[in-house]
């Protein structure tokens, strides 16, 4: 229901590829922008800083909760 509501917010004729995913259309970050740096503790015992991974491709995978599929 929530999704339907979001779609109905835009006039149908103006829907284009950019807006097919309403969530992405309202994202704070966009493709082409620098990824904000962060440092967080991890389950392997050491903290990880995004900036330390400069020079490699990184896949950042947010997931809602442990015990759900990643």
């Amino acid at each position, binding site marked *: 229901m929530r999704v339907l509501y979001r779609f109905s917010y835009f006039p149908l004729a103006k829907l284009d590829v950019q807006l097919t*995913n309403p*969530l*992405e259309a*309202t*994202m*704070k*970050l*966009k*493709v*082409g*922008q*620098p*990824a*904000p*740096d*962060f440092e*967080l*503790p*991890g*389950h*392997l*015992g*050491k*903290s*990880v*800083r*995004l*900036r*330390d*991974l*400069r*020079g*490699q*491709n*990184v*896949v*950042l*995978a*947010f*997931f*809602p*909760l*442990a*015990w759900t*599929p*990643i």
Partner: protein
Amino acid sequence: MFAGLNAQVLGISIDHVPCLQAWADSLGGISYPLLSDFWPHGQVSECYGVLRKDGTSERAIFVIDRDGIIQYIDIHDIDEQPSNAELREVLRRIDPQAAASTESEAPEQPLPHGGIVMYCTPWCSDCKQARAWLEEQHLSYTEVNIAQNRKAAAQVRAWANGNETTPTFDIDGVIVVDFQPEKLKELLIR
């Protein structure tokens, strides 16, 4: 999930670290870091625009290139998993050369021995310090990335009480777990 991708994978959720550890253990171990965005609660999720009103995050993927630029954003239905094939395609597009080199890599090589062998991961800050220290001392060494080498990861677990502690050193058969400059100095500089 995420097997064989030519990229460093970082999982992030708002769980606390012991919860992530217990979950990873229940799955038989996860070789890439699961990061805890627990406190300040959801700060990184919020910054990336994926924190939900219920305090958890969306199921979302950001692919970041070598220069730290976001190349791909995918927000998934919270109950669906992202597709590995699609991610591989994205990585191939943003970095064709690197994708080709992983695919041709030999799978199981014997682990190196002799001299200084450092078992490490690309993301660990102690490994970074250890590299800088070794270079400062003008010592040459061989690096083994345990995030991409299952045999090496198992070897480190055998040495380090079941933990994948990085860096771990094999110095002509003497094992030093973790970055201990004093101990390394004793062994290497006389």
